[in-house]
């Protein structure tokens, strides 16, 4: 062992154990320990946080200086400015979802690579409640469950799956218009709107609370600053949320 700090443990396709330490990657097979680092191998970095194997030919290393992907013998580096990681290139954790797509816990957010393009989740562009991301895991529906120090966020770009029995009892949808809006925001729903309406800013702070009823309502948003907001509609039967832009 080159270092007593074992940051992450990974198994390759053959079940062999690899350890991520700050200075080295360690391969452990039976009684044999093999250290790989910047000076005795082709590993291009130090400051290692995580190592993951997608298959026999694809290895990923998360480090303080970016994401390092080894495809067979070729290394590719993902870091700013080529990839718009949120605030930092520090890749704390690497995970693969049920489709084999790459998810990263970056210093101050979550990044997802679908093989073609990156999506970066931050406090500014999603309801990610905190920059302190603890973990990410995937259920059988491929919903991403993200643990933070301010709550549990479930993400699915195709719509959260797997809660059909709950969905049956809640609002199907509501219409929010215009979007972008200036002074007035209108809301309507065919199923009725006996609910409390809340508007949150991107920091998760509630900026407006209003009770509404009937099939439609108007909300005065003239006091809000320009920017992106989230409208949450909460009633006894459930909760729905939509995003809008205040001009």
């Amino acid at each position, binding site marked *: 062992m080159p270092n*007593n700090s074992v940051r992450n443990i990974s198994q390759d396709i053959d079940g062999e154990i690899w350890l991520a330490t700050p200075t080295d990657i360690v391969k452990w097979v039976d009684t044999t320990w093999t250290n790989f680092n910047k000076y005795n191998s082709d590993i291009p970095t130090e400051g290692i946080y995580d190592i993951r194997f997608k298959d026999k030919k694809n290895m990923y290393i998360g480090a303080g200086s970016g994401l390092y992907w080894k495809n067979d013998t070729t290394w590719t580096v993902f870091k700013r400015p080529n990839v718009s990681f949120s605030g930092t290139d520090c890749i704390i954790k690497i995970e693969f979802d049920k489709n084999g797509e790459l998810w990263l816990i970056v210093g101050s957010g979550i990044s997802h690579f679908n093989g073609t393009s990156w999506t970066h989740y931050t406090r500014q562009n999603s309801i990610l409640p905190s920059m302190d991301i603890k973990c990410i895991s995937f259920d059988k529906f491929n919903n991403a469950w993200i643990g933070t120090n*301010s*709550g549990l966020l479930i993400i699915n770009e195709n719509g959260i799956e797997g809660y059909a029995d709950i969905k049956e009892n809640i609002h199907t949808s509501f219409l929010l218009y215009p979007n972008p809006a200036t002074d007035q925001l209108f809301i309507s729903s065919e199923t009725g709107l006996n609910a409390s309406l809340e508007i949150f800013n991107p920091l998760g702070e509630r900026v407006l609370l209003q009770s509404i009823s009937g099939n439609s309502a108007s909300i005065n948003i003239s006091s809000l600053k320009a920017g992106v907001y989230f409208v949450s509609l909460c009633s006894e039967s459930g909760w729905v949320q939509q995003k809008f832009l205040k001009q």
Partner: protein
Amino acid sequence: MKKFLLIFCITLSYQLSVCQPVNQKYLLLTTKNSLLQSNVINDIKFDNENTAWIGTNSGLSVVRDKSWLNINQSNSNIPHNTVTHIAIKEDKMWFAFMETCGILVDVCNLENGVWTCYNKTNSWLSAIFTQDLVINNNYEPLVGTDAGLFRIHNKIVTVYQKAISVCLIIQ
């Protein structure tokens, strides 16, 4: 494990009373809109039945469909309420706990509703904090810590460190 879960889910299940968006990309669960025991979510793992095991700073939450079971020191024999890491492989489950504001790490196995824990008082597991927990192909837990790698096999905790490797049999 199935029996354990069934008993607890029947006796202690709760309706998932969370406001949830429909066809939306995001769902945020907190202590205000769900039965989460803490907003600090340290680890999440799913078992073979898609049950979510959620480690928080105030205990362990087990969520299956609409049933929600909270496990903490007041209703179980877990050593601490702070659950830092979870490892699940088939029907094997291991959990790492940390003493709140302390320096005591416990790594525990849950089998048939019984918790068996290893810590510095009964083994060489003397780490200050856990950084990773996995179960290898031999169903042994491997614990990555600030003080080396620990392996538990047949109640023997083996320590792998920079200079030495030692072991102690738990009583």
